């Protein structure tokens, strides 16, 4: 995921170097996101984890409540393959 994004960006930078304007644009987007305070709104330790039920890669629904029946669950959100 993020590593893939980084390696993809690296590869792209190798073949088509990012211009100063493009790098600045990306940095500005990250900066504005940080300033939006979005990270303050995620549930914190000690709060209940919202339950979910979503299809896995082959379409079978998987729920958090079922998964934690077997033990703790690490839930990680990511943007995609890039």
């Amino acid at each position, binding site marked *: *995921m*993020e*590593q*893939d*994004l*980084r390696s*993809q*960006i690296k590869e*792209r930078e190798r073949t088509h170097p990012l211009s100063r304007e*493009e790098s600045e*644009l*990306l940095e*500005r*987007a*990250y900066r*504005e*996101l*940080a300033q*939006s305070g*979005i*990270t303050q*709104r*995620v*549930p*914190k*330790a*000690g*709060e*209940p*984890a*919202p*339950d*979910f039920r*979503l*299809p*896995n*890669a*082959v*379409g079978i629904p*998987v729920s*958090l*409540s079922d*998964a*934690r*029946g*077997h*033990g*703790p*669950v*690490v*839930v*990680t*959100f*990511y*943007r*995609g*393959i*890039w």
Partner: protein
Amino acid sequence: MKAYQKILPEVLGLGASLIAISPQSPDKSQATLLKNFLQYEVLSDLGNVVARQYGLVYQLPEWVRDLYVSLGVDLPAFNADSSWELPLAGTFVVGQDGVIMTSYADSDPRNRLEPQAILDALRGAKKV
């Protein structure tokens, strides 16, 4: 995800499991699964419905979208969704009782919760 895949044997050894959630459509998730030989569940959260419940969703500003496309990241095509919304890279360690033990979210997608912090949380839970 690759960094987390490395600690997967330890996560499983501690009696826990790992679930990865992305807004990609199932076909793309399947490609990810095959590409990275993932050994854990990769769930499709179309429209970022669950990510929104976790407070992680933001919209890419219009002025940066063209750059993403030129980097080969055509979000509407990847996610079957034209909203240009993305989840933050957030990770939550959830106890068997459904209470969050560790919560992490970062606005910079180049950062993530260190794999070691996940293992520490799981080991801590085991001692209780």
